[in-house]
């Protein structure tokens, strides 16, 4: 089991290194295969470990394996160790499983790209980093993985490095994440100062035993929350995610939908002991999640870029997970994470098929009527959309419903607020998802669609390098993973049903005992409400589409949505500009004139004094005698005086 876990962790790393080191000695296809295989090998390792752990009794499912001491400084020690328990196993399976599918898919999607090898190396690196994050056996290793996924994300968003927007987006993503990292690190410093260690057990024991003062616990939890919010693109550190859609679509699927962005949820679940010691912060995370659900949903209503709509939807869905984790429904948080990975990856990949088919076009206004041209894609996209909207019995329904029910069960002002936000989110989800669906697939085929129909090769497309179309809609390597994901998105939710297998929630509960459990009644009530609201949303979308109207009519409100609630502008005014201003002022008003020129001034002063001294030496013999005689006189006077 431990061997399987290590294999899972190291296989993608090996893949990444191999591709990097082999460089151009490796064919492009081989790079793809190595990458894919390495991730699937990881999946196999994870599966082995999973099966073994699943066979153990519930209270013996946590395993730690230490390789060596990674960092020892002073008395502080951190081991290179992995933690294998149900939560990390779930994540491992998602990462390697969904990840493997997506890398596989990439082989078709990226074919003919200029720097494929680099791409696949990055993908493998990402999978390794993500595994590091979830398997890291202590907080520092978690932070390491945390940072590395940020790195991989940066690399992949900026993959098209000759596009300024892509580079800007990549930098933005990295910076936002760096802010989160810094916040987390600060929390860790405090933890080290108080407990001298970053081991999970020490930290959690300290938290749950009340050894940490409430203040300390709050601060540490805030730090963790800061990191989680940044990584999971929750308000207010979310602005990087939509921009991150500049990356290749499989990247969006893997990193910005299925895995990395959900790391925040994983973090809260993993460190729930600390959050529970700081209930205010935990509730804050729930509120952040709730608000994000709605804000992201609203913005998604007015977006025209197919990937951005899905991106905002991702933010919104992660909001649900934060909401769940914030009220202690850890099982449902993880469950929604799982199902979301399925259907969101599916949606992104399906969108990728469309984009691929349309030679890179992402504007939905130029699409339409694709249902007939791409029936397979239409089918899988529809599955994904329904799952996202939470329509039973598709996977999204089970997980989202549980979360809303938990909010109801939480009760109080907080619970009811969250409930309302959650339900509103369900409505919005239905609306924006199906707005997208109708715009893309229904109506008359647009000019662009017609051009690309029937495998007809466009000039530009050939130039773009997209090769042969094995299928009418795309190469098999793309369609097959999509199919697998469609199945998973459809039935994945069923694992929560008792009796089918050990219920998923129990599996997670062994690690993170839930703080709230919804009763069956609450469950049914919220289910009904949520499905109804989602249905209304879907209907509204259809109505608007048929009527040829916008869901949000042009108004001040729409302007606000279109400007994404002005977050970018506010940050620009609050942070970017002042930082640049300060830096410029420092450079122009302090460094150059004071620090650098001051030396010159001193030099000039000394030189002037030197010139003066030299001028005293006038060459006049008599003046020399005068100076000597004068000095002798002074010397004598002083001597006689002080004698």
């Amino acid at each position: 089991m431990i061997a399987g876990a290590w294999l899972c962790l190291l296989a993608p790393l090996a893949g990444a290194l191999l591709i990097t080191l082999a460089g151009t000695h490796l064919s492009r296809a081989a790079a793809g295969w190595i990458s894919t295989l390495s991730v699937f090998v990881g999946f196999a390792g994870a599966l082995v470990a999973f099966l073994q752990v699943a066979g153990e009794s519930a209270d013996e499912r946590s395993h730690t394996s230490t390789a060596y001491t990674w960092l020892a400084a002073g008395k502080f020690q951190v081991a290179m160790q992995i933690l294998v328990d149900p939560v990390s196993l779930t994540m491992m399976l998602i990462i390697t499983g969904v990840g493997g599918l997506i890398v596989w898919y990439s082989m078709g999607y990226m074919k003919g790209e200029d720097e494929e090898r680099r791409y696949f190396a990055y993908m493998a690196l990402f999978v390794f980093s993500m595994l590091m994050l979830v398997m890291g056996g202590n907080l520092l290793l978690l932070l390491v993985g945390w940072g590395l996924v940020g790195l991989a994300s940066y690399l992949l968003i900026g993959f098209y490095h000759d596009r300024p927007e892509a580079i800007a987006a990549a930098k933005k993503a990295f910076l936002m994440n760096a802010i989160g990292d810094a916040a987390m690190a600060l929390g860790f410093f405090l933890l080290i100062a108080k407990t001298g260690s970053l081991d999970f057990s020490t930290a959690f024991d300290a938290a749950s035993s009340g050894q940490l003062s409430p203040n300390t616990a709050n601060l540490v939890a805030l730090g963790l929350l800061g990191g989680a919010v940044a990584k999971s693109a929750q308000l207010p550190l979310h602005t990087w995610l939509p921009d991150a859609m500049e990356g290749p679509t499989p990247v969006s699927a893997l990193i910005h939908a299925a895995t990395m962005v959900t790391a925040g949820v994983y973090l809260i679940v993993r460190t729930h002991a600390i959050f529970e010691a700081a209930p205010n912060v935990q509730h804050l995370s729930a509120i952040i999640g709730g608000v994000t659900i709605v804000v992201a949903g609203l913005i998604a209503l007015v977006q025209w870029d197919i990937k951005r709509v899905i991106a905002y939807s991702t933010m919104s869905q992660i909001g649900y997970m934060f909401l769940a984790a914030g009220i202690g429904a850890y099982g449902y948080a993880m469950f929604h994470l799982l199902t979301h990975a399925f259907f969101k990856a599916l949606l992104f990949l399906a969108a990728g098929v469309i984009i691929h088919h349309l030679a890179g076009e992402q504007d939905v206004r130029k699409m339409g009527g694709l249902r007939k041209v791409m029936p397979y894609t239409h089918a899988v996209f529809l599955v994904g959309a329904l799952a996202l909207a939470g329509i039973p019995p598709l996977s999204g329904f089970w997980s989202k419903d549980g979360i809303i029910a938990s909010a109801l069960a939480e009760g109080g002002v907080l619970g009811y607020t969250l409930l309302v936000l959650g339900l509103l989110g369900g409505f919005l989800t239905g609306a924006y998802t199906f707005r997208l669906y109708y715009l893309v697939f229904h109506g008359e085929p647009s000019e662009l669609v017609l051009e690309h129909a029937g495998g007809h090769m466009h000039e530009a497309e050939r130039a773009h390098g997209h090769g042969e179309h094995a299928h009418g809609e795309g190469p098999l390597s793309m369609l097959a993973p999509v199919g697998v994901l469609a199945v998973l998105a459809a039935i994945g939710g069923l694992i929560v049903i008792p009796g089918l297998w050990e219920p998923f929630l129990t599996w997670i509960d062994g690690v993170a005992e839930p703080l709230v459990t919804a009763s069956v009644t609450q469950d049914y009530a919220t289910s009904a409400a949520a499905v109804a609201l989602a249905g209304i949303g879907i209907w509204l979308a259809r109505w608007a589409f048929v009527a040829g109207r916008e869901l949000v009519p042009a108004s001040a409100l729409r302007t606000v949505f279109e400007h994404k609630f002005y977050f970018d502008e506010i940050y620009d005014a609050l942070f970017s500009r002042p930082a640049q201003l300060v830096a410029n002022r420092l450079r122009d008003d302090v460094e150059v004139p004071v620090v650098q020129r001051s030396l010159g001034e001193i030099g000039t002063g000394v030189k002037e004094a030197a010139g003066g001294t030299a001028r005293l030496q006038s060459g006049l013999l008599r003046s020399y005698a005068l100076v000597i005689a004068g000095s002798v006189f002074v010397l004598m006077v002083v001597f006689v005086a002080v004698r």
Partner: protein
Amino acid sequence: MLGPSTTWYVAVAGVLFGIGTTGVILRRSPLIVLLSLEIMLNASNLALVGFSRHFASVDGQIFAISVMAVAAAEVCVGLGLIVAFTRRNMALDVDTLTELRG
């Protein structure tokens, strides 16, 4: 001692020394500067002789005689230089010696 006490001798020596100093600083002709230096040396001699008498030790007188010889030596070299100056058509004016300066 015959006449005034040593103090007076030395006072005259001091006056002569001052005169010599003034001459060195004041005059531009190297010849007169050399003469002024002689005055300074003689001032010292007067002081030495005066003190010599005061302490009844002949050391001072012997010193004075040595100084005379040294003075002669300096004059010898100085005059040689002045002759060389003239030979090279250089002005006998120390104020013109400002080639080396700064």
